[in-house]
């Protein structure tokens, strides 16, 4: 069940400034997006089994001291991309609003997977970290190719471009680590966007 919040989307779009037209559009597209059939898949491995995927300092630091990792992928379907194409040609305001709604929706779906995986990992692990997606920090999106293969993601209707980006475009993949020694991970250290981060300005963090 999706729990995306209207106020979060409006905040993203215009800083939460009162705007009736925008509110109506967000309502409309949240309703439309609620019909979206998302697909997801994950597999749990011993950390040692997926060493070839752990490319870059950030993901290795993230997985340090972990014993299990879940590799996951989640996607909205191609209809969303098609809808975006149509809106781009006909109504630019709706286009940017729908794009935002879809971005929130896919993050929300990733959050659902996170909860599911956490529930499974806590059987074996004392701690479970927030997800680490390809493209964060120096964790290259080229790893998408391995994730795609290991999860047989073609069967979910997810395909790769030549540069290992996903189609449908609203797709997220990554790794969730769990272990026995309690640890936390500061995602801000790996993020390229901290200078412009609204959350940091407000004293908040995305992973807390």
């Amino acid at each position, binding site marked *: 069940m999706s729990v995306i919040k209207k106020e979060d989307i409006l905040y993203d*779009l*215009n*800083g939460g*400034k009162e*705007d009736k*037209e*925008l509110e109506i559009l967000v309502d409309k597209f949240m309703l439309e997006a609620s019909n979206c*059939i998302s697909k997801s898949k994950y*597999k*749990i491995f011993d950390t040692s089994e997926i060493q070839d995927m752990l490319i870059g300092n950030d993901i290795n630091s993230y997985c340090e001291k972990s014993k299990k990792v879940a590799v996951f992928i989640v996607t909205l*379907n*191609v*209809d969303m*991309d*098609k809808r975006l*194409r*149509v809106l*781009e*040609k*006909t*109504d*630019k*305001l709706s*286009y*940017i*609003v729908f*794009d935002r709604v879809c971005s929130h929706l896919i993050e929300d779906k990733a959050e659902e997977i996170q909860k599911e995986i956490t529930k499974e990992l806590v059987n074996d692990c004392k701690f479970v970290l927030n997800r680490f997606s390809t*493209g964060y920090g120096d964790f*290259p*999106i*080229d790893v998408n190719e391995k994730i795609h293969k290991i999860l047989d993601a*073609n069967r*979910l*209707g997810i*395909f*790769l*471009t*030549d*540069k*290992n*980006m996903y*189609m*449908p*475009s609203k797709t997220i993949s990554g790794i969730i680590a769990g272990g026995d020694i309690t640890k936390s991970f500061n995602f801000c250290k790996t993020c*390229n*966007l901290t200078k412009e981060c609204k959350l940091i300005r407000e004293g908040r963090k995305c992973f807390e």
Partner: protein
Amino acid sequence: MSKVDFLNENKILFFDGGLGSLFIEKGIKFEGISELLNITDSRIIIDIHKEYIDAGANFITTNTFSANTLKLKGYEYSTSEIVKSAISNAKTAISESGRNDVYVAQSISSCGKLLYPNGDMSFDDAYELFKEQVIAGNEAGADVFLLETFMDLNELRAAVLACKENSDRPIFTTMTFEENGKTLTGTDPKTFVNVIQNLGVDVLGVNCSLGPDKMLDIVNEIKKYSEIKILIQPNRGIPKVVNGVTTYDVSKEDFLEQMKVICGEGVHFIGGCCGTNPQFIKTLVDNRDKFKYTNVSKKNLSLVSSTTITLDLKKDIHIVGERLNPTGKKVLQQSLKDKNYDFIAREAIKQVECGAKILDVNGVVASLDEKETLFNMMNSVTEVVSVPLQFDSTKIEVLEKCLRYYGGRAIVNSINAKDEILEEFLPVIKKYGALAIGLTIDKNGIPKTKDERMSIADKLVKSWTNYGLNEHDLIIDALTLTVSAQQEEAFSTIECIRELKKKYSVLTALGVSNISFGLPNRKIVNRTFLSFALSSGLDLPIVDPFDNNVTETVAASRIILNIDKDSQDYINSFKDVTNTPVVTENVEMTLSDIVFKGLRESAGTKTTELLNSGVEVNDIINNELISTLNVIGEKFSKSELFLPDLIRSAETVKVSFEILKAHMLKSGKKTESKGKIILATVKGDVHDIGKNILKTVLENYGYDIIDLGKDVAPEAVVKTIKEDNVKLVGLSALMTTTVASMKETIDLIRQEGLDCKIMVGGAVLTQEFADNIGADFYGKDANSSVQIANDFFN
């Protein structure tokens, strides 16, 4: 091996079952992909084939599901080597079994990439991958090509054409459907059957994804429309992952019971997919008497399809939108000359919103290459609307290109009764399985009387059916005459439609508006003529869907002709119509205020008002539009306004600009361009929202934008710079990895020595990054990119 041996058997034949899941069940481990086992451990494969043969299967599916060059990249064996060894293994198994009624089905599946417009794989590249597999299979002696587990209809079309153009062996095809009854790319069973059987395959059906209990509706739909034999290969239920292992919990007895329900009558080939094993196949074979064989039958339907929608042309009146024909449409002609395909896309969307069920597309514009123009129009339209298309051309090479690449089953507009035209067009129509409009014209031109037209129609029907095409796929256009010039003969068109419907099972189409040429208040004449035609049996009115007279006449006719049951569609369309007179909006604000507030609905009225009061176009642009955009841009930079405000104002300006452009075209003046800019999201990157926003804003400032789209190769950028003599290029990239593509594009532009500046932008870029990759300018956001363009062109 003769094709007739198994295709003409009057009994149910059996395929084998799962292979990949059998490897797991048997604990067979391998490095890389399982297709390598054909060479590295062929005995495993031979023995599995033999188990299925012993179970009673008539068809052994080769271990070549993923054997294409894309998926074999990085492995030491070629496609040809894998395919040939796999077929050899299957033949060895048959030979060792001693049976002579077992055939080799070469498995070919999705190439692993999503085809345009949903993905980045071209039709031609997919075709080449399949062709390589087909040639190898043909040489090695596969008995049939089994194109299986496809999700994308156009990709399957590419595979079918690769088979047909490189071999004469039979083609079996299956698609895989989700529980919602559609493939992952939105194709329903009816559309799949209509497109694929008309492409000339031998057998079609469904496999994988679902267990037999979930396939009933899908199989019933396939039976309803298929005129060829049917193959069903379900999974052993929905797989579950338990402790990291994929398991299936349907027993072979339950599987049999479910198969008896879904196959019943009318299925000709039966097998299994993931999770099924030789015991499942043996259970099916041992109970073969539970499945009743029936011959295939003709359905005599007239179905036209896109990749996701199929229309039954005999069951309803379908408006064919005619607005994408540039003849006499200056704005459309200019858009095509400017390569402004967004305009084409918008026209397509609006026509569908106004009630068009099919869109006619014509690419004839003086000075443009018709083949390329129509092809580009087709791509622009299929990106944004799902309705089927009608390709309007008199040139066979133009039509053939569109029919080849179009993912659905289209209508050809048109053929006529001239011998040379029939000889040239019918083979192409048959090859691609299209429907066609036949004009009642022959070498003597358009006849005046009904009898003369019927005589031409007789020839069209005879030639069409003699060529092996179905009569119900021919659409006769009895041609509208101009009543003011040929009043005595004009009604013969209506008489001809009536007689055609009595005599044949053909459909009828008609362009209507020619009837009123030269008369005042043409809409009344058009509407009345349309009513006559519809009541006489017109199936496809080719009309302007923006004209309410036309759409309302069709809506009312659908009630009277008992098509719109209980008037539901009519009531839904018109329930909000009241008799209250329309009040014209009183716009007190200036155009500048309207733009600032983003009031799109008021911009048109105000712009027209200013033009009518004699204000010059340039004054409106400079004093009302651009000056306000500058204020908005400044406020946006200071975070006093946000992206939605910027976009809303930009869209408002666009409404004004469209009216100004139309005004200038009408008065024979050309709008002044401030400069031409290429925009592209670089190769490998599919995120284009930033580029699209910039495009909107730049267009508002009067720049001509050549939008090359997303995932654009460096070569395409260079080619366009040269062809259109462009001096400023904007490149966009969202991800760090695709910034490398940006650099490649910049490097190629520099290598070619082109006199062209480059600005770059995107989420991951900074001024430092832009400098490092050799860009001339860094656009932090849409507003700063506009400033760059303004400074550059000034």
